């Protein structure tokens, strides 16, 4: 039992990991065939994960309703929304019955446009209000780091809108062309093209190295948390 539960999955991961690594650098048969096959399998499995997601969602919310847990009403709403959307979306569209399917003019697209998009857009746009309030209350020049961040943020915020460009035009025209490097739009471009790029590269390199080391740990069977153990 221990072989099937513990060792076999580790052997499959070891074999797949090593062969996939070789396949990336050796694009010839039989490795290229294995590479293509594995990628097609991955797509199929990814499709099935959605079914798994639906099953898990149904089980979770069904349990909430059956046990009458707090907020079970939302679970009922979830079931109604899921069933209505799925039924209207799954039945094929035809010229005689345009309300079915996922084409424009169908109930599915109506739900997408007027419920999904509207609700998601509302929640997302609330961020502007929270950011404004948080900026007023918490964005303070308490330390040197915070001051540098605040000044940079102010320059980028003004430099990215037309008023910033107009203000810069006014400054360079009235003070002198020699100060062109101090234009807010030029400073914004400088921040985005140099400090941001440098920082981003450092993060990306760090992430890449971390991914390689984690992948090696998984392939070699050192990291086994994906199997549900420790």
């Amino acid at each position, binding site marked *: 039992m221990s072989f099937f539960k513990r060792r076999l999955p580790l052997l499959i991961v070891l074999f797949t990991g090593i062969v996939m690594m070789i396949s990336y650098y050796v694009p010839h048969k039989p490795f290229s065939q294995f590479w293509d096959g594995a990628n097609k399998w991955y*797509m199929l499995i990814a499709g099935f994960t959605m079914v798994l997601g639906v099953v898990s969602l149904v089980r979770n919310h069904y349990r909430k309703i059956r046990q009458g847990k707090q907020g079970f009403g939302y679970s009922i709403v979830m079931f109604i929304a899921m069933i209505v959307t799925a039924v209207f979306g799954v039945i094929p569209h035809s010229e005689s019955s345009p309300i079915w399917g996922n084409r424009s003019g169908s109930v599915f697209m109506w739900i997408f446009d007027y419920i999904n998009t509207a609700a998601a857009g509302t929640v997302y746009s609330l961020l502007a209000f929270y950011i404004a309030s948080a900026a007023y209350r918490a964005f303070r*020049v308490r330390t040197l780091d915070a001051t540098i961040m605040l000044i940079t943020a102010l320059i980028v915020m003004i430099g990215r809108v037309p008023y910033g460009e107009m203000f810069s035009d006014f400054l360079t025209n009235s003070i002198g062309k020699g100060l062109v490097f101090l234009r807010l739009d030029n400073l914004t471009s400088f921040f985005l093209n140099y400090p941001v790029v440098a920082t981003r590269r450092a993060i990306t390199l760090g992430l890449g190295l971390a991914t390689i080391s984690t992948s090696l740990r998984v392939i070699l069977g050192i990291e086994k948390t994906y199997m549900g153990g420790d």
Partner: protein
Amino acid sequence: MIKFSDRLLKIDRRIIYSLLAIAIIIPIFFPLNLPVKITDEVRGVYNEIDNLPPGSKVLVVYDYEPASRPEVDPMALAVMRHCVRKDLKVVGISYLELGRGNGENIFNMIQSEFEEKGKHLVYGEDLAYMGFKPGRSAMILNLGKDFKGTCVTDYRGNDAYSMPILEDIEGLGDFEYLVCLHDDSSVSIWILYGFEIVGIKIGACCTAVMAPGIYANLDAGQLTGIVGGLKGGSEYEKLLNYRGMATSGMDSQTVIHILIVIFILIGNFSYLAKEHYLKKEQMR
């Protein structure tokens, strides 16, 4: 003075929210018609599409969720309008489950808009939308080798093998250009498996919050350009000589940026004034 600073620091959040709401709504009804300056990043995407010969094939990727539609839809429309004006053939695809409806909407809007202008676009010949395909990185790898075999059918259920627009498309490399409309880091995956393996040129159109993160890719030559947020969208609209949703949205965004800057300055002046007077009192 301390009392005044304290009062400013403890200003009711409802006042901030109300001022913000007014700043958003007023420019919508009374446009400011602010000038738009074109940046090199946006010109990078525009020039790439503009220099393609008629009949070239462009793949437009709809990798953004409905929440980002107000920001990304104007760019999607601008890019599609540009492609159709240049007589390019456009194929759409989505890598996100929730992005598929966005592509369907944009394709329909463009088709009916040009129909009204007298330009008839034949679905399957001039444009086609493949919809959502699962598998993320594996999907892109498979598209690179066998585009039709990976898609199998389009969003409307048509057979990919029988679509004239895909006739001479074997893999991703047969497209002349790829435009990635995104609100997450999906463009990195397209760069990794599209640009690096197949060699397809990529232009990014993304939300403003995602743009700074991909300047490193632009600098490395992995992207031809970046159209970032409403600002980038308004620049693209200006290049196409029309005033669309991005340009009108920029009016509100400009006022909000100025308002937030004022909030930050007031907050900090009040904070510094309070600290200054508290120190003075302690000295006494």
